[in-house]
């Protein structure tokens, strides 16, 4: 009662300006959301304040209803969405790359087998000139330097997708580390957000870490050549991300729950992930405002997303999302 009175009082003192939306969560799509919000504000005057606090934080804050939308790279299962009373839809697709900073070795020169990548992140391959790495890279002069592993320290959807991938290519990883937003890391340095991991990689020579492709582009790191689901070498390049993304099978009835790692195809980069928006079901009016922002971005934001290294959703997926919105009365 008191709470309501105070809230009403406060609201009457300060009349809200144009629809201001606040959202928080994943750092993986943060660069593109910042850009979309910037353009949306220029075009409509509405402010979409997105804060990059990690997928774990995004799920927590939208569940606590302290933000208007949450963002997570780890999709929530339909059951969990029902329990937390949330809607969920994808916003954009990105890719996680194994980014390295080895003086003298350029982008895309280093090949790492998927299972060896797991061994590196488990601390079982300790030096860059380990036989398991050199045998795949006969032309490269790899130094006898210790590998500095950089990973996330916060609850992260990027970690979820990366560990999902590693668990499916390495039994050792699946049995001893597992899949999750936050892991019990056997080795390495922890950073907060994709931002934090990117800074760690750039500050530490001979390091390797996993970041969203946009962060690799902005920082000029090298990205390792990995393997497709069937074991073919595949470069971390936009066309290969797209090749993987086209295998996505979206089902609105499951709130688009879908993990995109290890898709079939000869050119499919193995760690591609969609990033999701979470909306509180009861906030119909505010959801309409949030949906307007994403609708605008779907219409006008593709070029921006591509420039930053993301893959925009295909038109038919966007249509699918629009009918999902309509079905729930928020479009």
């Amino acid at each position, binding site marked *: 009662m008191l709470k309501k009175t105070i809230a009403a009082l406060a609201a009457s003192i300060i009349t809200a300006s144009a629809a201001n939306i606040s959202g928080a969560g994943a750092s993986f799509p943060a660069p593109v959301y910042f850009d979309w919000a910037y353009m949306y504000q220029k075009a409509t005057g509405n402010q979409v*304040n997105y804060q990059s606090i990690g997928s774990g934080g995004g799920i927590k804050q939208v569940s606590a209803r302290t933000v208007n939308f949450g963002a997570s790279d780890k999709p929530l299962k339909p059951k969990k969405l029902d329990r937390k009373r949330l809607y969920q839809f994808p916003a954009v697709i990105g890719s996680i790359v194994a980014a390295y900073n080895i003086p003298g070795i350029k982008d895309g020169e280093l090949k790492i087998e998927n299972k060896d990548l797991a061994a590196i992140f488990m601390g079982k391959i300790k030096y860059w000139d380990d036989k398991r790495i050199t045998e795949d890279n006969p032309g490269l002069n790899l130094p006898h330097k210790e590998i500095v592993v950089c990973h996330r320290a916060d609850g992260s959807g990027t970690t979820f997708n990366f560990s999902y991938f590693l668990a499916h290519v390495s039994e050792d990883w699946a049995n001893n580390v597992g899949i999750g937003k936050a892991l019990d890391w056997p080795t390495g340095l922890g950073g907060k957000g994709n931002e934090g991991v990117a800074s760690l990689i750039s500050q530490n020579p001979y390091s390797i870490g996993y970041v969203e492709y946009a962060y690799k582009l902005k920082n000029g790191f090298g990205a390792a050549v990995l393997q497709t689901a069937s074991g073919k070498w595949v470069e971390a390049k936009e066309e290969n991300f797209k090749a993987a993304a086209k295998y996505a099978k979206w089902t609105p009835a499951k709130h688009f729950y879908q993990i995109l790692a290890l898709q079939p195809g000869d050119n499919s980069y193995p760690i591609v992930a969609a990033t999701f928006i979470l909306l509180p079901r009861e906030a119909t009016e505010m959801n309409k405002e949030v949906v307007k922002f994403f609708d605008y971005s779907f219409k006008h934001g593709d070029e921006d997303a591509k420039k930053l290294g993301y893959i925009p959703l295909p038109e038919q997926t966007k249509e699918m999302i629009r009918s999902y919105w309509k079905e729930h009365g928020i479009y």
Partner: protein
Amino acid sequence: MTRQERRILLNNIIMFLSSAAAIAGMLFLFWIIGVLIYKGFTALNLDIFTYDMAPPGREESGLRNALVGQLMLVLGASLIGVPIGVLAGTYLSEYGGKKGRLARLIRDISDIMMSTPSIVIGAFIYALLVEPFGHFSGWAGIAALAVMMVPIVLRTTDDMLQLVPGSLREAAIALGAPKYKMILQVVYRGAKTGMLTGILLSIARIAGETAPLLFTSFSNNFFSTDLNQPIASLTVTMFNYATSPYDDWINQGWAAALILALFVLGANIIGRIIIRTKKGDR
């Protein structure tokens, strides 16, 4: 070696060690200030004050919204924290007495509060003002900073008022002044420079806080003066920018650090000048 020589030697060793420690402390201070000034001034330009925060790599990018937000937060916290702190300090010194049980309890509690990690205060305000209301807000940030401020102002006010000699109070009472007049016109007047210094130092203290704002006032990428909404602050922006991988954001983070440091340094220096001039008067 005679006893005298041994004592001189020991004396010299101790002197050397303590001077070395002092120099090491100073060295780090000047190192920090030096790096801050160098990196901060190279990043500082007019755009910082005229444009709002923008995504990395944009031309029209600044910190205007964070500066305004920071001022609003600090001002709001001061408006709440200073009166409560001064009044509570007055109670302790003038009504509670040195030995009073309640006064002693309050003093102990405020000492504990002063050493409470600021992130704990942030979490407390989150549970009290963010979760129940369903949004991050400038008010929550103000409340968190005010909670931090009260014990500092309370203790300095208490200490300063107690420095006023009891004979002055007795003289005022003897002349027939009621107690409130005695406090307002005699005790406050005698302690005002000390109280003002305490207030300035407490403002300087809270102005540099990030932890209590992280999940109360949150942050805002846009210009907003609505305290019901998340609001940007220099400290949180600095934290976000400094840990980001973008060069332009990192530079702006340095500029924010410099502005903040100059503000805090300014408040400290003004506080010290006030103490100096007071001593000169005597």
